[in-house]
């Protein structure tokens, strides 16, 4: 198995930045199919000439995957516990977002450890479009 970092290896305050991800129309179509919310494909309401909006929850979804694409190995996530999330500005098809993540607290449990992670989603102009907090249960280092 690839070398993993564990709860014990994570430093509070460490900031990580993900690569960018351009949001495409294909993503929106796939998300509509997967979620079953086909109203997302109704383009009749938006301002004329503007690129279609990307569903807020799709941005949140892509950011959850982006979080694994950082230069250091990530601890094995055992469970997502809590999400506290705010949608601040629209994201449009063609925008490129990336995520800045910082572990703000950690707490050891018997069966794992809880990490509190602040995440900011920024677009290509550096504007924060979404932000929030993840509480994750991650693996502790196995005892020898």
């Amino acid at each position: 198995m690839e070398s993993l970092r564990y709860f014990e290896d994570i430093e509070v305050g460490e900031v990580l930045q993900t690569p960018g991800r351009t949001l495409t129309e294909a993503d929106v179509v796939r998300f509509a199919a997967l979620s079953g919310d086909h109203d997302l494909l109704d383009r009749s309401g938006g301002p004329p000439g503007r690129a279609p909006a990307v569903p807020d929850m799709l941005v949140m979804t892509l950011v959850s995957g982006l979080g694994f694409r950082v230069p250091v190995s990530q601890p094995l996530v055992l469970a997502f516990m809590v999400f506290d999330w705010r949608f601040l500005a629209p994201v449009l098809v063609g925008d490129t977002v990336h995520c800045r993540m910082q572990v703000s607290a950690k707490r050891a449990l018997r069966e794992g450890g809880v990490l509190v992670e602040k995440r900011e989603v920024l677009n290509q102009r550096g504007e924060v479009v979404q932000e929030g907090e993840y509480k994750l249960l991650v693996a502790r280092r196995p005892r020898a």
Partner: protein
Amino acid sequence: MTAEDRQYFEDIEVGAEYVSPGRTVTEADIVAFAGLSGDYNVLHTDAEFMRTSIFGERIAHGLLGLSISSGLGSRAMTRPFATLAFLGLRWRFKGPIKIGDTIKVRIKVTDKRETSKPDRGIVVLNRAVTNQRGEVVQEGETDIMVERRR
């Protein structure tokens, strides 16, 4: 759909409840969600590894459950809200969703308040996602901005 089919801020009653149809979560949903999100965590993609885990098998991504529940939510309402924007959510993942589980969402309007702008208001919805045994696997609150009648 015409504008009259939608529920404006004034039409929405605190305490109103909606229940969606069920949706069975399949292996294909999990594979598709891994591809879309890029989250290939072993929890969702490695059947062999997960056989030895406390779950005994692969489980759905938490956000897949949330995404499916948002789609189910739109099917729970015969008259959708005149939503202008999704403001935020506070969400708790309480239990696993496994391949073959059938989930539905119950939505309850818990609060509504006016804002400084006369053309819109904020509505708070409590959403509970349950499985076929009636266990709540995810739950939380979403804040939405809804259009007012003019």
